């Protein structure tokens, strides 16, 4: 039951965050959204993801958004056009179409928490058994992240490096260091 309430909170926060015209409150609500997401992930037993979300989603990303806001403008411009314009209607149509196609796709999916799901039965037992036997690491997520899929993590590090370099290149002042 509590899960449904948390998920409802997520929906309300995201709608408010998109809808409000004050960008600062939008960013703060996005941070609260990330925090509720952390609780959802703890409820789903994804503790490592919850850690990362609390640090990165609720912490670092809010700071980045706030620093970007401090260099630009706080308010969203009031729309002077009429309330329902054709562009927004078209966007809503596209979004509803995409959503209904995805919902149609989930009807065939294995149920939530189904142990017969293909995602659980091919690779996961191999990693769960191998983690203790081959590596001696108690946390399976760590052993997959650092050992079985180590190249993936190397690629992730490359992505962070590239992003950092491009942010520095974009925000560098001319003639400065």
């Amino acid at each position, binding site marked *: 039951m509590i*899960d449904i309430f948390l998920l409802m909170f*997520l*929906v309300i926060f*995201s709608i408010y*965050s*998109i809808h409000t015209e004050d*960008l600062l409150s*939008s960013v703060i609500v*996005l941070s609260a*959204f*990330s925090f509720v997401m952390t609780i*959802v992930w703890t409820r*789903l*037993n*994804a503790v*490592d*993801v919850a850690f990362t979300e609390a640090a*990165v*989603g609720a912490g*670092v*990303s809010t700071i*980045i*958004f706030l620093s*970007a806001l401090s260099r*630009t*403008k706080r308010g969203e*411009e009031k729309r002077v056009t009429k309330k329902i314009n054709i*562009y927004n209607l078209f966007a809503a149509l*596209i*979004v*509803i179409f*995409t*959503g209904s196609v995805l*919902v149609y796709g*989930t009807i065939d999916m294995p*149920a*939530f*928490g*189904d*142990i017969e*799901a293909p*995602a*659980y039965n091919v690779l996961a037992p191999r*990693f*769960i058994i191998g983690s203790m036997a081959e590596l001696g690491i*108690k*946390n*399976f*997520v760590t052993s*997959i*992240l650092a050992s079985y*899929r180590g190249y*993936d993590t190397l690629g992730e590090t490359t992505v*962070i490096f*590239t*992003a*950092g370099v*491009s*942010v520095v290149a974009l*925000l560098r002042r001319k003639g400065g260091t």
Partner: protein
Amino acid sequence: MLDLILSKYNYWISILLMMIGLYGMIAKNNLIKKIIGMNIFQVSVFLFYISMGKVRDGTAPIHWDRALIYDNPIPHVLILTAIVVSISTTAVALALIIRIYKNFQSIEEDQILKVLAREENKTDS
């Protein structure tokens, strides 16, 4: 019908979040609002993946003597990577927005397009 709802509501809520984020990306005129929409979109995809990794009565994927069954650790690993990638894209996008604001004094898409069209007309004539 109730069975279907109970077994799929996690997926459907993540799809609903995805729709909200996608609407923000398409319909909003403010560039920072678009990035907020993108963030919500990304988080909805993460929720979808983690929901797929959940197993009924499973414990957290950490070795425990009394554990009968563990949750699937692979989606957790993929999403750990994806969270870091999502923060990278957000940072680069916001840096681009700051540059755009320096050049155009605006973060509203239609105003920027207007300025761009005016400049194009100038170079044509």
